[in-house]
């Protein structure tokens, strides 16, 4: 089984609440789930949707066919009813939409009336809708009650919501046609997590104690999560006056001795670039989340794109090493954010987490979170270890290029660093010799060590593929499912890069061999110009002859990607809105 439920309506109608609630229910049922959000840069009105896909085996990406469409407005019907499967249904409240639709796929459910009849308020129509969907699906209403209980704190509100949920459930069960897709529950309850939550959680679990940011979609979720958990975990979360401040604050906190992170999107990252370079020069650890959205400038604030890869890689004046990771799933986010905190402190180089709106706002199911997977080593010189030193030089020359990082105030030595070129003690210099030694230390020596930490791309599918799908970041899921889908007919594999800079050297012979031996290597990116393809050529000389691009601000769907890939496989290259196949 593999079902998709789409909830559509205007901003402010509660789409997110319905989507979130249903996701939780399915997840607690034990289903695997992937949901994503499509919303506009406004608070009320317009057209948004929330799409939940759930199944009894793991799902990773959005699909196009919709099994149940919950329409909170007429626009939703207009835009999405042709997405319904043969056996799909659209449910709506004709009183609310002031519209009645003909055809067996349209089911009129009086969400609002159900809510009011149970003594609930108008807004509880959404709870009725949740109930009705579960009724249609033949699921148990109790799990919905559980979910309501964990989100609603006021007893009265909870009680009336529960009543409304039940009434909605009964209505759905009794008045909606016997659903073709009545599913059987799985055993173990699962969790759901969004990309932003995974990043923020991993930061917390990695010992991040300071988060400064200026709100910017799609990174704001991290700020809100950190703020919401600040007191419990002892974290200072500060909304800065602007992004230059946000990154400089993170650097200040890090200099003072705690793990620090900042997060933003492309426009805010642009303002952080000078600070990034400062991190490079002062060798101050910092993790920066760059959650991409379509640009240039303000662009499409609430949509998705992967166009900031080379910007992230080359941002900042001067030469200094940096690390860039682009997780494609919550698990990768857990791992890579944790690794980011480790590397940034171990080598004192900035680490950028390249996320995007599709990763940030989508939800996946998880079996749970194993806290033992979060590594924590303290690389700083503190307390006794620092106090006991005979002398201390913040930027001492060492074989590894890594100088001891002491916590100011914990020993009788001063800790000095400078954005100007400096000597071992951190004081300003002008001479050529020190400069060269410092560049050698800061850039070449450290880079050599950092490179060793970088892992090769993840390979999936055929061992010795004829066709390779290559991509990075949030396209992980859709590429992986495309491989599963095509595996029966072709020797196909996926090569997914999540550790992008320094470009992986480990396993290079293997992955380059795969690329060179394949009949067809297709680079798949959510951008127009092929940023990763350029990087690949710069780093390896390999030139992709085929690529698939999507730059309409929306993520790939499985069907959309398959169609493009099949075009390549069958020799027919098509041009479809927002998808430019082939060579450029």
């Amino acid at each position, binding site marked *: 089984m593999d079902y998709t439920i789409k909830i559509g309506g205007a901003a402010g109608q509660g789409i997110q609440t319905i989507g979130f609630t249903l996701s939780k229910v399915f997840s607690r049922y034990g289903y695997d789930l992937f949901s994503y959000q499509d919303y506009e840069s406004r608070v009320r009105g317009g057209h948004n949707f929330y799409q939940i896909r759930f199944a009894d085996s793991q799902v990773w990406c959005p699909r196009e066919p919709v099994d149940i469409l919950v329409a909170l407005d007429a626009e939703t019907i207009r835009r999405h009813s042709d997405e319904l499967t043969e056996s799909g249904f659209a449910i709506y409240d004709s009183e609310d939409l002031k519209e009645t639709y003909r055809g067996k796929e349209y089911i009129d459910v009086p969400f609002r009336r159900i809510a009011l009849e149970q003594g609930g308020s108008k807004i509880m129509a959404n709870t009725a809708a949740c109930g009705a969907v579960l009724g249609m699906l033949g699921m148990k209403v109790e799990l919905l009650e559980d979910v309501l209980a964990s989100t609603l704190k006021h007893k009265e509100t909870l009680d009336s919501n529960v009543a409304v949920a039940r009434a909605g459930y009964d209505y759905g069960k009794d008045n909606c046609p016997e659903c073709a897709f009545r599913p059987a529950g799985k055993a173990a309850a699962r969790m759901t997590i969004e990309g932003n939550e995974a990043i923020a959680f991993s930061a917390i679990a990695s010992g991040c104690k300071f988060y400064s940011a200026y709100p910017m979609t799609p990174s704001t979720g991290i700020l809100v999560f950190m703020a919401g958990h600040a007191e419990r975990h002892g974290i200072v979360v500060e909304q800065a006056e602007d992004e230059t401040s946000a990154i400089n604050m993170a650097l200040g906190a*890090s*200099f003072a001795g705690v793990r620090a992170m900042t997060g933003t999107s492309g426009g805010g990252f642009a303002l952080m670039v000078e600070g990034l370079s400062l991190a490079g020069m002062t060798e101050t650890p910092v993790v920066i989340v760059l959650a991409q959205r379509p640009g240039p400038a303000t662009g499409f604030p609430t949509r998705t794109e992967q166009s900031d890869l080379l910007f992230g890689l080359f941002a900042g004046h001067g030469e200094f090493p940096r690390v860039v990771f682009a997780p494609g799933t919550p698990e990768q986010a857990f791992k890579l954010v944790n690794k980011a905190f480790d590397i940034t402190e171990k080598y004192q180089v900035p680490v950028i987490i390249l996320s995007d709106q599709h990763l940030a706002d989508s939800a996946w199911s998880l079996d749970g979170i194993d806290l033992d997977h979060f590594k924590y080593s303290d690389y700083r010189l503190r307390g006794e270890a620092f106090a006991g030193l005979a002398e201390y030089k913040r930027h001492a020359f060492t074989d590894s290029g890594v100088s001891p990082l002491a916590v100011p105030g914990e020993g009788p030595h001063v800790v000095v660093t400078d954005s100007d070129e400096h000597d071992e003690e951190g004081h300003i210099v002008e001479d050529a010799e020190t400069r060269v030694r410092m560049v050698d230390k800061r850039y070449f020596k450290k880079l050599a060590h950092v490179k060793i930490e970088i892992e090769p791309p993840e390979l999936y599918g055929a061992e010795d593929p004829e066709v390779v799908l290559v991509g990075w970041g949030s396209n992980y899921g859709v590429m992986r499912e495309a491989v599963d889908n095509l595996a029966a007919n072709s020797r196909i594999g996926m090569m997914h890069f999540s550790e992008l800079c320094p470009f992986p050297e480990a396993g290079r012979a293997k992955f380059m061999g795969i690329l060179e031996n394949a009949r067809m290597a297709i680079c798949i990116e959510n951008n127009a110009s092929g940023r990763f393809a350029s990087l690949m050529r710069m780093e390896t000389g390999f030139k992709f002859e085929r690529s698939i691009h999507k730059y309409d601000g929306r993520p790939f769907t499985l069907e959309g990607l398959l169609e493009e890939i099949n075009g390549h496989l069958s020799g027919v290259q098509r041009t479809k809105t927002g998808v430019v196949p082939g060579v450029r």
Partner: protein
Amino acid sequence: MATLAEYKGQRPAWCPGCGNFAILTAFNKAVVGLGWEPWQFTIVSGIGQAGKFPHYTRCNTFNGLHGRTLPVATAIRLANHDMHVAAFAGDGDCYGEGGNHFLAAIRRNVNVKLFVHDNQVYGLTKGQPSPTSLPGMRTPVTPAGVTEQDFNPVSAAIAMGCGFVARGYAADTDQLTELIKAAFQYRGFSLVDIFQPCVSFNKLNTYEWYKQRCYPLQDGYDPADFDAAFARSREFGDRIPTGILYRKESETYEERQPVLAGRAPLVKRVGNPSGLDETVREFA
């Protein structure tokens, strides 16, 4: 107890006669007077002649970017609220490039001390006008004279609710020493704007110019009186008052922030956080 000798830093790269030397002297005296060791406090500075300051004394130092002293200083203090933290900036650094952080720092009231070497010009970059340059001043960038109004940092700070606002003058080193001490002793964000003659590029606001105008606030002056303070802060003509213009303590950010108030500094609480299981359960 540290002595002045311990505060000998690198050899200053300032011009002979620069007002910065006196500020350095006053600062060193102040910290010796406070009984601090060099490693017990942190100076954050920006870029400019003022930005070189911490190298010429001894202290934990973060000499960062032009204009960004306050965010760095603020965060150091939030990460370690047992540390004394000061920001040293030029007038261009603080009221030009970094103006937005000045506004925010006043609103935040984190216990950070801001000392501005106000030479009314861009020194290090060779004589361009700064926000405090007087209208009409001729510079290479304003051959016909500065067109903008000058920024009055002390009156702006008082108006915006800064709880400690003082004006010093480099050549009155004794008073300046006291002002620096008082700023450190005050609980909260404080501004000391220090007139600092730039002998190389500011031929208008010279030692003589300041000498003719600056007068110390008298004993009878009550720095807790907001209206009087604001009025005095606007005195910027033939006579310019120096000293503590305004002082009023109120709750600091650290005292209002539940993660910090009454607790050990963050830097003493590093490592794996507690309570993770509870957070994990929220994803169920």
